[in-house]
C-alpha cells in the first residue's frame, strides 16, 4: 500500500499538459527532445544518400559541374542563405521567449521565422520557373537546344542532365522540408495563441526549432556545393 500512497502524493502536482504515462515534466520534456534528436539523425542519413550521389557525379564529371553551376544564380542563392540564417536566429529567439515566459516574443519570432521561410520559397519559385522556362530540367527532360535558343550557354561537356537532376532533387527535397517546417510554424502559432506554451512546457516549440535548424544546416551545405563550384 505504501507505493499507492506514494503515487497519490506525486500525482498531487499534475500539470494539465503532463501525459498520463510520464512521472514528471522533466521526464516528458527529455523524452520529447531525445526523440527529436533521433529523428534529426534520421534526416541526416536521408540527405546523405543525395550528398553521396552528388559526390559521385562530381567525381565522374568535374567539368560538367564547373560549367553547369554558372547557370545557377549565386546571388539568389546567397539571398536565400541570408533568409534562412536569419530565420534560424528568430527561431532561437522564439525558444528564448518561451524560456522567459514571453508570449509576445514567442509569437512574433515564430511569425518572423514563418515569413522568412516563405521568402525562401518565393525566391526558390522564381529560380525554378526560370529553369523550367529555359529547359534546364533534370535527366531526360533536360533540353539543351531550348536553352541555347533562349540564349543560355547550355552546351556543357559531360552530363549536364545529371547536374540538373541532382540540383532539382536536392533542392526539391530540401524545399519540401522547408514547406513542412512552415506548416509546423502555423501549428505553433495557433498553439501559442491558445496559450499552450510556457517556460515549463515548450518542448514542441523547441523540437520544431531543432528541425528548422537542421533544414537550415542542410541548405548551408547545398548552397556552396551547387552554386559556388570552383
Amino acid at each position: 500500500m505504501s507505493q499507492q500512497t506514494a503515487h497519490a502524493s506525486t500525482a498531487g502536482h499534475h500539470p494539465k499538459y503532463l501525459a498520463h504515462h510520464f512521472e514528471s515534466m522533466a521526464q516528458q520534456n527529455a523524452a520529447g527532445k531525445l526523440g527529436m534528436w533521433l529523428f534529426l539523425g534520421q534526416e541526416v542519413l536521408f540527405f546523405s544518400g543525395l550528398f553521396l550521389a552528388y559526390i559521385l557525379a562530381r567525381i565522374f564529371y568535374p567539368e560538367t559541374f564547373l560549367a553547369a553551376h554558372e547557370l545557377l544564380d549565386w546571388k539568389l542563392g546567397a539571398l536565400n542563405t541570408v533568409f534562412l540564417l536569419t530565420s534560424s536566429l528568430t527561431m532561437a529567439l522564439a525558444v528564448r521567449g518561451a524560456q522567459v515566459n514571453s508570449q509576445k516574443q514567442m509569437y512574433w519570432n515564430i511569425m518572423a521565422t514563418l515569413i522568412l521561410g516563405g521568402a525562401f520559397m518565393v525566391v526558390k519559385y522564381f529560380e525554378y520557373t526560370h529553369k523550367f522556362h529555359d529547359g534546364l530540367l533534370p535527366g531526360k527532360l533536360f533540353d539543351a537546344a531550348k536553352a541555347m535558343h533562349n540564349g543560355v550557354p547550355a552546351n556543357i561537356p559531360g552530363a549536364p542532365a545529371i547536374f540538373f537532376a541532382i540540383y532539382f532533387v536536392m533542392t526539391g527535397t530540401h524545399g519540401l522540408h522547408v514547406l513542412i517546417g512552415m506548416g509546423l510554424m502555423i501549428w505553433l502559432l495557433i498553439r501559442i495563441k491558445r496559450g499552450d506554451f510556457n517556460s515549463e512546457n515548450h518542448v514542441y516549440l523547441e523540437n520544431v526549432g531543432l528541425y528548422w535548424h537542421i533544414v537550415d544546416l542542410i541548405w548551408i551545405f547545398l548552397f556552396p556545393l551547387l552554386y559556388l563550384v570552383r
Partner: protein
Amino acid sequence: MESNRKNVPQGAHAATAGGAEPNYINAHKGIWSWMTTVDHKRLGLMYLVGVLGFFAVGGIFALLVRTQLLGPIFKGASGKQEWLFSGETYNKLFTLHGAVMVFLVIIPSIPASLGNFFLPLMLGAKDVAFPKLNLMSFYVYILGGAFLLFSIFTGAVDTGWTFYTPYSSTTSTSVVSAVLGVFILGFSSILTGVNFIVTIHKMRAPGLTWVRLPLFVWAQYATSLIQVLATPVLAITLMLLAIERTIGVGIFDPKLGGDPVLFQHFFWFYSHPAVYIMILPAFGVISEIITINSRKQIFGYKAIAMSSVAIAVIGFLVWGHHMFTSGQSELAAAVFSFLTFAVAVPTAIKTFSWVATMYGGSLRMNSAMWYAQAFLFLFTIGGLTGLFLGTLSVDIHLHDTYFVVAHFHYVMMGGTMTAFVGALHHWWPKMTGRMLNEFWGKVSCFFVFAGFNIAFFSQFVLGTKGMPRRYANYLPEFQYLHQISTIGSYLLGLGFFITLCYMIQSLINGEKAPPNPWGGRSLEWETDSPPIEHNFHHQPVVTHGPYEFPEIDHSQAPRGGH
C-alpha cells in the same frame, strides 16, 4: 482514461487473476476503441494480427512458387510446355513473396508486435514514450501494406524484392506503387525505432539499470538504432527510383550519365543492416526463452548485450558483400569480406552463450523451448553458410544460386520466424490470458523443423550444383531436388497451419493462464495475465537482475547474485 484508473478500489491489486480491475482487452468496448487506441498492448496485438495475416499471404505466394518448381520441366521456346504459371507470372510471384515477407512480415514481426507489447512491460512503464506516434506508425504500416498489395492489381512487380536498376526503371510492371508502399513502410519502421529508443532511455522503472534490462530489451535497442539510421537511406533510394520511373531523372541511368550500381550500394546500405533488424530481435527472444527455461543465470549477460550493439555497428559496414560480382574494386571487396567475417564473431558469442546457459541447467522443454532449440540448429547452419558467401572466391561460384536462397532462408525463416513463433508460445499466456496446448505445440514444431530442413537443405545442394535463383525453369538433373524441396515446403506450411489451429482453440477454450507460468523474473511477469490497462497496479521497483531465479544455488558460486 485517468478517471478510469482513479475509480479503481485501493485493494484491487491484491487480486492476481480475474481481479476487479479490467484488463487491457475489456477495459474499453467496441471497434472504435481499438481503432483509436494508444495503448501499446492493443497496438502490439493489432500489429500481430497484421503481421500474421501478411505472413499467410506471403506463405501462399511461397507455396505457389514451390508448386511451380515441382512440375514438369519447360521445353523452352521450341516445345512450349508450361506447368501452372508462365515465366512472367512466376517472376511476379517470387517478387511478391519476397517483398511481402521482408517488408510486411519479418521487419515488423518481433519489434512491432511483441516489442510494442512487452517493451513497456519489461521496463515497468505505463506506455511507450510517444503513444500517439505509435498509433500513427500502425496506420502508416497498414497504408504501406495496402500500397504494396495494390500493385498486384495494377500489374504486380517482377523485379525481385531488391528492385535492382536498370531493370526496375525500365520494366513495364507496377514498380512505383510497390516502391511507394515500401517507402511508406519505412516511415512506420523509423517512427517505431525512435519511440523504442526514447522509451528505453527515459521510461525505465526505478532500480532498472542498464545491466538489469532483460536481453530482449537490449536486442530491441540495437534493432531500433538500425531502424532509425538505415531506413532513411532506403527511403531516399526508393524515392530516386520512383522519380526515375516517372520523369527519368537519370541518376541511375547510364544513358544520361548516371550509375545503376549506385542503386545497389544505396539499396544494400539499408538492406544489409535490415538483415540485422530482422535477426537481432530474434536473438533477444532466444535469450529470454532459453534462460527462463534453463532456470539459471544467463551465461555472459554483458557479452550478449554488447554483441547486439556490436552487430548493429559492424552491420553497417558490410553491405558490399552483396556486390562481389558487381565490379566493385578488389580492395573494397576484400575489406567487405573481412568485415563480414568480423560480424560473425559477436554472433558466435551469442550462440555459444546460449549453449553455455543450457549447460548444467534444469531444462524445461516446453514448446517455446522446442522452438528455441530449432532456432539454435537452423540459425547456426544459416550463419555458417553465410561465411561461405562472405569468402570472395567461393562467392563467385555461389553468387545468385540457390545456395544464397537457402542461406538467407535458414537465417530469416529458420532464425527469425522460428524465434517469432517460439516467442508467441512463450508470451501467449501473458498476451491473451490463456495457455497453449503443449502437445500440439511440439507437434507443430516438429513439422516446422523437419519441413524446413527438407525444403531448404536440398536448396544448398541445388546451389552448389549451379541452380540459379529466380528461374522458373531448370535442367532435368535438378528436378528431384526441387521436388524434395517442395514436399518440405508443404510440411512446413502444415506445421504453421497446426499452430494456427491450436492458437484459435486456445482463444476459445484454452486453460486460464496464471500471471507467471514460466517463473520469469523480469517485470512483464509481475502483472496480471492479461495485463491491466495501465500495466501495473503500482509503480514497480526493481531490486534484482532479470534472470535471478529463486532456485539458483548461490552457495556454490564465488560471484553469485546480489
